[in-house]
């Protein structure tokens, strides 16, 4: 049996849709909102429903053989897993954003404060790309609030349509990285379980269509 970790949240519907269209599963995962473990007889697959940030952990330890997770999470946690496929779903980007019309002023500000769910990505961008030392405040959600209430000057966050930013009087200053969902695979599983190759090929054909 192959165990697959799926991220609860914005990616789950598209991810399960992908498995269904590939004829790998017969059950409707997205309808089963409460269960944490789901089994499907058709492809002899088991699905774990976990928080996006936990997907790479389950896969790194080999508890899950593979997982689906956004590149944003992979950039942030940097785990030793194979990133075999770009699933081309959940497309968005990581951006540096702040209050509308204040871009020039804030980018020149000497001691910047950045609020984010992604402290490592933020640190990497400011230190290695811009060569700047900034204060980072780690938040777990509703990051857009921080500059409005004066907790931070700017934010680093994922942006899909940009609607949340606009509705809160913010705008994108810089686009940092393009993001999409990836299929990640445990190092030992890829080498020891031959069924994985079939699943990867199946999903790959579906993406290329």
């Amino acid at each position, binding site marked *: 049996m192959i165990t697959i970790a799926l991220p609860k949240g914005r990616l789950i519907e598209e991810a399960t849709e992908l498995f269904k269209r590939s004829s790998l599963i017969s059950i409707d995962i997205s309808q089963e909102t409460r269960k944490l473990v789901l089994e499907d007889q058709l492809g002899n697959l088991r699905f774990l429903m976990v928080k996006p940030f936990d997907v790479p*952990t389950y896969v790194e*330890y080999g508890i899950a053989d593979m997982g689906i997770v956004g590149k944003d999470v992979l950039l942030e946690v940097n*785990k030793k897993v194979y*990133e075999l496929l770009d699933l081309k779903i959940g497309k968005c980007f990581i951006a540096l954003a702040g209050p509308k019309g204040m871009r020039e002023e804030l980018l020149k500000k000497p001691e910047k404060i950045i609020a984010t769910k992604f402290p490592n990505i933020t640190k990497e961008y400011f230190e290695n790309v811009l060569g700047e030392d900034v204060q980072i405040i780690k938040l777990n959600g509703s990051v857009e609030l921080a500059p409005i209430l004066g907790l931070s000057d700017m934010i680093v966050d994922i942006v899909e349509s940009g609607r949340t930013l606009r509705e809160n009087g913010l705008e994108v200053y810089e686009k940092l990285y393009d993001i999409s969902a990836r299929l990640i695979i445990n190092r*030992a599983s890829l080498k020891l379980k031959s069924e994985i190759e079939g699943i990867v090929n199946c999903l790959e054909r579906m993406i290329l269509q």
Partner: protein
Amino acid sequence: MSRKFVDYYPLTSRLLEEIRRKTLFLFKKFGYQLIEPSTFEDYEKSKSLNGQNSIKFMDSDGTIIALRNEFTPKVAEIVAKNGGEVYPIKYCYFGRAFQFIQQEAGDLREFYQAGVENFHTSDSYYIDLEVLVLAIESLLQLGVNNFTIDIGEVNFFKGITADYGIDDASAEILCKLVDKKDYIGIENFLIKKGISDKVIDVFRNLTRLYGKKDKINEAYKFAKNEISKSAIERLKEIFNKLSKLGYEKYISIDFGMVKHLNYYTGIIFSGYLPKLGYPVLNGGRYDNLCETFGKRLYAIGFALGVDRILNWMIKSGEAEANFYKAALFYKEGFFEIAIKELLKFEKEVYFYSNPIDVQQALTLSKELKISEFYYIDEEGIKRYNVEVQK
């Protein structure tokens, strides 16, 4: 966050000793001599792969010393400085190494490694083979089954990067992306470098060049140069010879396995076990290391992550929890005889230090979950069976 202190209780200590005995027995059988390098190394001169991750101290003279975080550089230094009459020189070791930060799943602050290093004066794939046989056999001897030793050859990748004029710094970045099989990362990186689609396609294909024998023939499609071609030839030869030895089911090939380009110079390999997500064994050829210590020598070796195997043994129920098989009790006044009898025993028994009557001895034996005990009184030594309650 991993444990702050790595203690071994009786069960794990016993397994550790068993692993030590079995691995060293095997290594010595192939002519590897045991050495015990110093725990300390000179931090500034350290040649270890991940040297910045070592635990450091200030020495009394102001220099920085570090706890070793692997054995290979130290062993190489010993050989380069002392040499020998007959090559190959074969050394093995078993001991603890230390690291500052635990970066990956399975990492510990202090960990045991069992390994071999083979130093020789001319390149030979027979030595690659010998070391791979030891890697496979060491896992077999430890009772592991269904594992795979995944083998790559870094020259395959080096030849291709040289072919397309990719500079060393870019090759190092590319190597990390290929090793992660991150083909989007490869694409993005090479597009930025202004490299053509055709070449990008070659590197993208490298991420899928893993599996069994068929991948060796597929690899020829991408090897337009002599370096890559001879890398394939070597892997092919190794694969065939190991198959002839009956090891085919224990090996797999991965041309996309590339790491530390300026350290590894030939084949590299990692061992994976079922139900354990991270490698238990890493090794490879490093023909440039000894030269940094003043002597040009070819070298190959590997190290077993002993704690990872230990972890697997406990997880998979391979470990037997009960240490004692039997116990020895004695009646008041028979201490001297008990000691004399105890010294005659071949097996490990639980010697109950205080005198005790036979009824209590039975009760204690049940608590110890042992199947037999010996009791000494005026009639001499007598063996009793204990009904084990499961």
